[in-house]
């Protein structure tokens, strides 16, 4: 084989190898302030970073109102208020068997919980029933929270077949199958 041809072959092979990793999913969710996540990543899924994630209760509201984490993450629930607060969830993604009561505790105390089930966790406080918050547990490392404009980007997604889910408070969750190949688009209009 002539040298020129084998060089060309190597370059083409290298380019093909890169394209298999650098996929992404972009899109828009209507209305905004939504959460999007992927499910069905093939191959080993990297574990969540060993970082402390906190859900606080401050000023009689859950802060942040929406928290998105990867499955396997431990969330620390903190009470920063002078009053006692309680944290419980009645279900996870509608599964009532996954209900859990973290208990009621005073200012300054933190209680951890490791989320091993993916889905939507609606947080409530039974001392202040008007309080509400959400933890969205993504089954994969590919998740994003949109801004008010609803735009999102999931970067570095390996090409492949996935299920993409969009959630917005008060709207019906929507999921659809997508095939990620390079830059892929997925838009949602939630009802």
């Amino acid at each position, binding site marked *: 084989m002539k040298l020129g041809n084998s060089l060309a072959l190597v370059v083409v092979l290298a380019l093909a190898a890169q394209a298999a990793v650098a996929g992404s999913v972009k899109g828009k969710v209507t209305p905004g302030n939504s959460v999007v996540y992927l499910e069905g990543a093939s191959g080993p899924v990297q574990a969540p970073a060993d970082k402390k994630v906190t859900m606080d209760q401050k000023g*009689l509201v859950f802060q942040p109102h929406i928290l998105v984490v990867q499955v396997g993450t431990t969330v620390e629930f903190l009470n920063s208020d*002078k*009053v006692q607060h*309680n944290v*419980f969830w*009645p*279900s996870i993604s*509608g*599964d*009532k*068997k996954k*209900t859990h*009561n973290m208990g*009621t505790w005073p200012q300054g105390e933190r209680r951890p919980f490791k989320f091993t089930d993916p889905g939507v966790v*609606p947080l*409530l*406080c*039974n*001392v*202040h*029933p*008007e309080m*509400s918050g959400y933890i969205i547990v993504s089954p994969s490392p590919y998740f994003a929270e949109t801004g008010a404009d609803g735009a999102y980007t999931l970067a570095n997604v390996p090409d492949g077949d996935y299920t993409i889910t969009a959630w917005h408070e*008060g709207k*019906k969750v929507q999921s659809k199958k997508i095939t990620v190949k390079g830059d892929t688009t997925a838009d949602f209009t939630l009802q």
Partner: protein
Amino acid sequence: MNRIYAAFALATTLTVAGLLLSAAGQNPQATGAHAGVQPAKMVIPGTDAGEHAISSAVGPSWLKHLGLTVSQTHLGQMGGSSPATAQKPASGANDPAATVNLQSMMQRFLTTFRSNPEQAAGALHQEFQATGSDLYRWNCQACHGPEGKGFDPEINSVVGPVQGTSAKMARDRMIARGIEADDDMVNQMSELAATSLRDRLQHGGKNMPSFDYLRKDEVEALVGYLEKLAGVPPTQRDGLLVPESAARVGEHMTRGTCHICHDATGPGAGMGQASIPSLASIPRDHSLSGMVHQVQYGSCSTLKLTGGDVMPAYPYFTEEEIAAAYFVAYSARQ
């Protein structure tokens, strides 16, 4: 009532104290500050003291316990000298339609205590019906306000915690938010909230005193009223009536409201001093009508100029309720 006050002006407070004290067989003696462990039982002859014995406030005021002055709390900012034009409750213990109510019993007491101490004592212990809203006014309103909303951030609202006790409200809220909930779980959470509410009343907390002197039926009637304040759908506690007596009303008032600021025993207010008179000193130093006026109108405004602690006005208490407190206050002698 004015006629009765006039009759009162004839008798000095000491005579009153002397009569009741001698009836109880004890020596009139203004003791110094003495925080007893057991509350003193006011024993009046002619009644079954066991059933009707009431206990008086004991020890230093709740504010002293917290290390606060009145001016540092919302009570000191409410100001005195406000006209007693607040809506006087006309139901429950003060129900004019009831043949036996607080007003008739206090009137009978005040007209008979000199001539017939035994009959007067009977009037103090005669039972009539009271409501949860009465109990709230006597024990809770001074701190938590007329609607239970408290005074943020010093005093918490009771609305949230009471709403948490309603399984129905919780279920409705979850449905409105599109959240799936298991009935058992909702019931369990609301029962936990109900237990913790009663626990709070029983033991108090860091900033809230304990109300362990409330009977079980009084607690339920009170919770029934709290449910009303919190907008919770009515439960079997709604409008619950409980037996009370004039003596017991005095106990609610002194232990539930007065003792927040006034020590049970100790010196009276000094001239030019920023001091709060002890409960025991009030019937010794003040006439009934003087005290009624002070409670309904608050401290005179010049007191603020001399740096004294200003007593807020309590226009939501009736004259008879204040009178009942007057006669129980004097019993806080040990």
